[in-house]
């Protein structure tokens, strides 16, 4: 095993030569963020896991085609987003139902039961509203808000201009606000 740490670019170079050790190292470094990106977009753990594996499979097969003109993480994001969108489009089930069915149980952490219930309800409400956004706005919003990526990085991932990304994020927030207003207006007991 090498004593020095290889950066992601070096790992990709070795993977293009079908070095499985380097590939395993890359997977260990990046699997969490690829998996989370897929999960945030798809909303299902099983499918997110399969999609994340497909992302790395594609990386393994096409490592020699990587031009090193962008960061490896940007390239991984790009593949993860495209793959996830393919899965979403194939799925025919309602995103609303999926988002509610994939809620994870949270640890109580000593909070008051009422507070915890309200937090869980608010979190599930937000997730379901985000999941109901139009696809382009949803992707831009998730990458910006969930993954904390800048508009320029998102632009590079999606292959569009930074301005277009900012417009999509702004529209996503406007739509979220409209849906929140409508929801809270129809259910005043939420207040």
């Amino acid at each position, binding site marked *: 095993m090498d004593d020095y740490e290889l950066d992601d670019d070096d790992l990709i170079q070795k993977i293009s030569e079908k070095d*499985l050790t380097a590939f395993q190292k890359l997977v260990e470094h990046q699997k969490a963020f690829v*998996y989370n990106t897929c999960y945030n977009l798809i909303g299902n753990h099983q499918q997110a*896991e399969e999609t994340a594996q497909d992302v790395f499979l594609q990386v393994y097969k096409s490592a020699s085609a990587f031009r090193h003109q962008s960061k490896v993480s940007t390239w991984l994001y790009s593949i993860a987003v495209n793959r996830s969108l393919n899965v979403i489009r194939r799925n025919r089930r309602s995103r609303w139902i999926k988002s509610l069915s994939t809620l994870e149980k949270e640890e109580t952490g000593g909070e008051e039961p009422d507070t915890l219930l*309200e937090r869980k309800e608010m979190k599930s409400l937000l997730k379901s509203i985000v999941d109901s956004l139009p696809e382009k706005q949803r992707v831009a919003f998730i990458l910006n808000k969930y993954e904390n990526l800048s508009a320029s990085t998102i632009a590079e991932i999606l292959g569009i201009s930074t301005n277009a990304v900012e417009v999509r994020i702004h529209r996503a927030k406007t739509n979220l606000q409209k849906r929140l207003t409508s929801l809270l207006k129809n259910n005043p007991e939420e207040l």
Partner: protein
Amino acid sequence: MNQDCQNIVNNLIDIVENSHPESLEKVILDHLALCPRCQRLVKYFSLGWEELSTAEKLSPPERFWPELLAKIQDSEKPQLLREKIILGLRNSLRPAAVSLTLLLGVFFGYQLGNRQHMDTIHTEMVYVEPYFQDFQDFPEGSVSDFLMKYEIPIQEEKP
């Protein structure tokens, strides 16, 4: 829900992101100081909104790497076999395929050429009686027989 509460609801995201218009700031703060329901709404919405970006990142299960490795090995095996088969077929069938294409081209070209000749003949048959090999074969008394026997008077050209 009164108008002040509606203001809070209508600007919820801007409030938690601190991007609401300055003109509304005093109105919002004054109302939040007096309305416990709106205070609670803003508080829990803020927590939920913040959690979107700070939620703990999940890690895939332990089986992730072994399954991925199996997928890589599976993807490589059929590809080698498939490639060999395609290459073999290509090498052996290419000359035969070229020859067959040429023969088919000649055949269809011939058929097309014959078809046009038949169409011409058919057209002529619409306007005349059935075509006979020999002009003497026309049935006696038929129009064709009359026309064949009729002598067209020749007019002498005037100088």
